[in-house]
């Protein structure tokens, strides 16, 4: 058993408004010289450190935790879960 670092990124589903992302885009980035940026989405990331047999089980265990405890709200959010060697 070894430690793995698992990143959980929680972001809005497509179609759910993200006023923070829009503000960063319109009132910061596009007011500079970066006119080639067309979209910014904000997200929340949780970084888990978990002891598991392998990377796959670390990833699936964290997904299980996220689903069980409603770490994200499935009505409005999607999660991306990535595991790394700690």
């Amino acid at each position, binding site marked *: 058993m070894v430690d793995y670092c698992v990143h959980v990124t929680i972001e809005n589903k497509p179609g*759910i*408004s993200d*006023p923070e992302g829009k*503000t960063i885009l319109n009132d910061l980035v596009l007011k500079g010289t970066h006119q080639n940026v067309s979209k910014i989405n904000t997200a929340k990331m949780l970084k888990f450190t978990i002891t598991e047999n392998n990377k796959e089980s670390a990833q699936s265990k964290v997904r299980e935790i996220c689903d069980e405890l409603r770490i994200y709200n499935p009505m*409005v959010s999607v999660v991306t879960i990535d595991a790394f060697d700690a």
Partner: protein
Amino acid sequence: MNVGVVVFPGSNCDRDMFHVLSDVFNLNVHYCWHAKPLPENLDAVVLPGGFSYGDRLRAGVIAAHSPIIQDIKKISEKGIPILGVCNGFQILVESGLLPGVLLKNDSLNFMCEWTNLTVENNKTPFTNQFELNQKIPIPIANGEGRYFVDDETLDQLERKNQIVFKYDQVVNGSSNQIAGVCNDDGNIVGMMPHPERAVESEINPHDNKPSSLIFESLLKKMDVNN
């Protein structure tokens, strides 16, 4: 009539709610700490506003895992009236007792202002003394008050008459300007505005009578003569 006011770490409208229920409406009110079992003699339960667990992760989500929520689920199945106000509404949504979700206000600001509601459903234990479409001047105070449901759930809410209150104008970007909903059975109501801050003329610069009807509806439901 015994009413429980549930207290979570970070609740801060619990004493206002206690005061209104006990001093204005003469009810027997009991604080119920979230980590203890719910007393068995309650006729109604209120989840007050505040910032349970500092709104960490998402408003209401951590409190939704408190032990008392299981007891609230059980008594809700018996038809006991349950009201969630502001953070209490967020907790009811996150615990699955009410549909939808509360997102950050469109403005991203904490909004503390007076709004006008319209009553969309006058059959619940908290709205039975209203006329349909009656207006309620009432304050909001929240950062995550934008009620959201997907289109399918919205259809369902409309079909089953689960939309209880709407804002009379665009306030924070809520789906269909929804300010409060109920469950399918109608005994659980959640609302973002604060009736406990609006029932006394001393602190209501508009009209305190409509907000009072929320609690008078509960008295009527329980057949209490005040």
